[in-house]
């Protein structure tokens, strides 16, 4: 088995720098998610690992081997494409066995492994069908099966769930996670969906404009975002941000003031952003005054949007919270979970 090492990877498209010197070490058997908005370079990075794009600088290692200058077919990898790229002129069996046939695996062995692969993904009844006769979800599973039967130590997935409808995506997400537990391939998984990233990844690399903003375990990134960008990208709803400055033991901004029980000398006088997640705010008798804008009952809880000064803040409240729009309320921030970021750079301030 093998891990993946990316060192100082750079890639240019014309004059735009798609990758600005990225380094990641992915452990053997690890499920690494590359997460970011469109245009952040996550797919480019994956394609560079696959060999479908050439790096302009840096290198890629798979296992002990430097593969930077190798063609995709020599890298010993398998990939699931966003479009699936399931060949329309081959049956399901033909598609699943394609990589094995290209590697000149004996026919009997191809048949056995195709059957195993189809079994694993519930495709056994469809082996003789053509892709046009399958649903989108089934085609996606053919693409996954084709990649898995390769027994390549590295599996690359480029937004494999983005073309499925919401319900199917939920199912496929759980299936992929279960498969990874069973086969334990080193996996790089590209997505722009933070829920997918949170639920599937051993670690997440959050990318932005060709750089990695933060790498870490999902809950670590969720609780301790390295920047305002990460806090805003991860979590639904995103982290709340209030801009202000620390003066005399209070954090005060336009139209509000939050008392601080623990004095932060280091923050004194600085322009700063307070970050707090919706579930770490409670509506109570005292605290920061706010005015309710919207109440959204979501079944298990209610999402209350309230105005603190001029900033809208989302609060996760009990479903029976009983507040109405325009009502004046008081918010209390759970101080242990509050994060501070520099107002200029957005970078988290160490606590």
């Amino acid at each position, binding site marked *: 088995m093998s891990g993946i090492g990316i060192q100082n990877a750079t890639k240019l498209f014309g004059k735009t720098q798609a990758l600005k010197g990225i380094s990641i070490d992915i452990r053997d058997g690890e499920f690494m998610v590359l997460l970011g908005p469109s245009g952040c370079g996550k797919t480019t990075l994956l394609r560079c690992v*696959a060999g479908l794009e050439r790096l302009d600088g840096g290198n890629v290692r798979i296992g002990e081997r430097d593969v930077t200058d190798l063609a*995709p077919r020599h890298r010993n990898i398998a990939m699931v494409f966003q479009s699936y790229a399931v*060949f329309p002129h081959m049956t399901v069996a033909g598609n699943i066995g394609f990589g094995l046939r290209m590697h000149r695996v004996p026919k009997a062995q191809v048949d056995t492994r195709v059957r195993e692969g189809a079994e694993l993904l519930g495709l056994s009844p469809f082996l003789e069908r053509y892709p046009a006769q399958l649903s989108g979800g089934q085609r996606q599973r053919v693409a996954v099966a084709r990649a898995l039967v390769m027994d390549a130590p590295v599996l690359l997935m480029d937004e494999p769930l983005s073309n499925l409808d919401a319900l199917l995506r939920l199912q496929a997400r759980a299936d992929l996670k279960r498969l990874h537990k069973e086969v334990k391939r080193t996996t790089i998984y590209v997505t722009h969906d933070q829920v997918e990233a949170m639920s599937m990844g051993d670690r997440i690399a959050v990318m932005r404009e060709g750089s990695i903003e933060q790498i870490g375990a999902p809950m670590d990134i969720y609780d301790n975002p390295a920047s305002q960008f990460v806090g805003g990208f991860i979590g639904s709803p995103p982290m709340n941000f209030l801009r202000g400055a620390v003066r005399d033991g209070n954090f005060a901004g336009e139209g509000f003031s939050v008392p601080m029980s623990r004095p932060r000398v280091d923050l004194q006088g600085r322009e700063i952003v307070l970050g707090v997640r919706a579930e770490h705010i409670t509506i109570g008798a005292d605290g920061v005054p706010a005015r309710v804008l919207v109440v959204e009952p979501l079944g298990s809880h209610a999402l209350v949007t309230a105005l603190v000064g001029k900033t809208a803040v989302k609060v996760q409240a009990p479903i029976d919270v009983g507040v109405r729009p325009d009502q004046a309320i008081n918010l209390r921030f759970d101080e242990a979970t509050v994060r501070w970021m520099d107002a200029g750079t957005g970078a988290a301030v160490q606590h």
Partner: protein
Amino acid sequence: MRARAEHVLPFTLLLPSVAFLALLIVIPMFQALLLAFVAEKGGFTLEHFQQMFGDVNFGDAWRNTLLLLLLIVPLQLVLALAMALLVNSRFRGYGFFLYIYAIPLAISDLAAGILWLAVFTERGYLNSALQSAGVIQQPILFLSFENFPGILSAIVIAESWRATAIVLLILVAGLQLIPRDYFEAADLFGADRIRRTIHVVLPLLRPSLQSALIIRTIFAFQTFAVVFALAGRNMPVLAGEAYVWYAGNRNEHLAATYAVLLLGLTACVTVIYLRVLGLREAEVQR
């Protein structure tokens, strides 16, 4: 109201080309059928066909047409496919090659024939070049009626030069329609360039190959101007006989009979291609 307008719109858009085809193709086609099957004194007859089959040149014309078809169509297809794959590999300067390849498209077939006559004739470019290079002492009579292989080769070369471009363009367009993901997936799953072409590119290109083959075969049946320019009456072909009987012998009935024979052959070949090369139904559902 709106649904009805949507229903009518496609037909409205098709109408001009249908009218065009009816005027220039369907009406002449029926005229030819009438001329071929109706006797001069009226009434159905097969005498024109009997006359055609009995004609001295018919056997040669039939043989030559098939021979040219069998030589030219496969040759052009292979050449065009190689060129299309080359262009599609997007090497540096491929646009220039595509441009050069496409030049013959702009030249009429008679002009192309005359151009190649200038190459192959007794004092043509080829003989001059060979002589000045010292390869031969006397000019070779490539196009003499006694030199059938010479005439045939000259026609095959000229026709291939002239009409490979149309096949090329159809195939290049077909290649560009194939999503690049398929090529990338093939590469990633271990197929080198040759196996990628055999297992992925050619099967996905099948609809375009089919169109190109049909178009080329139809035109190969109609090969005429280039043959006439290079060989004159030394090499009769079916389409040429239709022309000779109409323009030379003033027999429109026999000319139409040749035309109807070509129509029948073309229709047969097209049906065969569609049957043999057509996509399986399972591949195109939905």
